[in-house]
């Protein structure tokens, strides 16, 4: 059983790296020590009117200094609160949560779409294989320098302002890329398209899913997704994204 910790993390630094996208380094001894790529943390608001945790993927882990990096978009009130915090401020977090990505030594696509891009960075750092990093942005790019250090980066933008105009699959086609395994995180339509692409091309495909959460640790059954087979825990065709996921074999889940 993977160990989980509740910690009061301290903000080391925070900056806006793109419009409404923030990068926050947090000091946290135990979570950093135990985390791996594809896992997430539950971040709590300091304001008492907001009680549920915000699940945020781990973007980078610095085991040496006991720190993790979170990159998030301001999507509502909780993330707006986080974005206003400064160095030295405290945030209660629980983690590391979820299963994380499996790591195979196969020629890989690391595919991130929008705010699904950040977790692919730590994965890129952990993977030991040929890496083709395909990133889909709406318009403004972010984390590009970091990704470029990890492998060849292909970019798609919705408005065509950089790289391929279109989505990540358009970028794959335009660049004539192929791979033996897909690791992906991003919006549902992207994941759906990748699942189909992987099936057609018989590629192993791992995707990271998202759902509203309450406990974040598998107790409340809020965050399920439909699974193809009956799940051992639930005894019905539901898997908990926070516990059995967020990373699933694409063919295991229906969405």
């Amino acid at each position, binding site marked *: 059983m993977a160990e989980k910790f509740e910690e009061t993390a301290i903000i080391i630094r925070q900056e806006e790296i793109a419009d409404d996208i923030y990068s926050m380094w947090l000091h946290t001894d135990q979570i950093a020590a135990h985390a791996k790529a594809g896992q997430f943390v539950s971040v709590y608001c300091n304001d008492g009117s907001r009680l549920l945790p915000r699940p945020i993927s781990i973007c980078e882990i610095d085991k040496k200094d006991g720190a993790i990096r979170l990159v998030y978009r301001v999507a509502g009130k909780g993330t707006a609160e986080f974005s206003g915090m400064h160095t030295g401020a405290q945030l209660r977090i629980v983690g590391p949560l979820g299963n994380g990505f499996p790591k195979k030594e196969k020629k890989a696509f690391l595919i991130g779409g929008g705010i699904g891009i950040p977790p692919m960075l730590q994965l890129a750092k952990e993977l030991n294989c040929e890496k083709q990093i395909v990133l889909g942005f709406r318009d403004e790019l972010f984390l590009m320098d970091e990704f470029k250090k990890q492998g060849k980066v292909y970019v798609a933008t919705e408005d065509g302002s950089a790289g391929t105009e279109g989505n990540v699959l358009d970028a794959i086609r335009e660049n004539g890329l192929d791979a033996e395994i897909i690791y992906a995180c991003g919006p549902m339509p992207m994941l759906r398209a990748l699942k189909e692409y992987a099936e057609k091309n018989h590629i192993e495909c791992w995707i990271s899913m998202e759902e509203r959460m309450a406990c974040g640790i598998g107790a409340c059954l809020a965050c399920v997704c439909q699974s193809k087979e009956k799940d051992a825990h639930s005894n*019905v065709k539901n898997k908990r994204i926070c516990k059995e996921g967020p990373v699933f074999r694409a063919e295991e889940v229906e969405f």
Partner: protein
Amino acid sequence: MNMKVDLCGVTLNNPVMTASGTFGSGAEYAEFVDLNKLGAVVTKGVANVPWPGNPTPRVAEVYGGMLNAVGLQNPGIDLFVERDIPFLKQFDTKIMVNVCGHSTEEYIEVVERLRDQPVDLLEINISCPNVKEGGIAFGQDPKAVEAITKEMKKHAAQPVIMKLSPNVTDITEMARAAEAGGADGLSLINTITGMKIDINRQKFVLANKTGGMSGPAIHPVAVRMVYQTAQAVSIPIVGMGGIMNAEDAIEMILAGATAVSVGTANFTNPHVTEEIVAGIRDYMERYQVADIKDLVGAVHE
């Protein structure tokens, strides 16, 4: 200093329990809290067969609380008996199984199945707002409350605690009906039905449209109902609804609860149940309360 309480003939080490549906069967939170420190673990509602529950989104955050419409997803009594009860038996805590069903027969089947199980207490959920049949329908009509309570008592081996819905005009009417039906105790409150609309997407946030509201936002309603119920019946009450800390738990006890259940607070702080036990102990020391029983219903007229 005594923190032990007698709940329907079962002695709990302390009055702090977990609220059904928020704590699974304890396995997940056991990574954060020592289950031996809790008065009892109350399990997620279990039915005669596995239930898939409602579509997602199943939860929504609201001001000072949350809505849920999990819809009683559960693995069914067979897997529950095989896996969850043995897990809980490892700990020095009591086991209260929350029971749900679509019909009286389904409730009976679960209760019968638990007769020979090492389970201490049964909590009969007749107040779930998130399932189409059963659930709350039983809990909003005093005649139905009395009838199902009688059936439960006929078939149950363990003490029967009826879990009441706050979505009623007069909670004492339901409480008296359960008492008349032979209930050994009462649990209240279940969630209050609420709704959230996303104004940007112009859609209901929950797939189920409505959900049950829980968390500190409902605490004053829960305290009021526990108080009113304590004045109306003589069976013990398990108080719940928005207990976030020891102060809230003590308030509930002073209003008349023999024990308390902590639900939504677990989601905000996975250690909270243990902290509440410690906080009640501190309070008793500070005010030199020799026996926690002296606090039960201590504030009235």
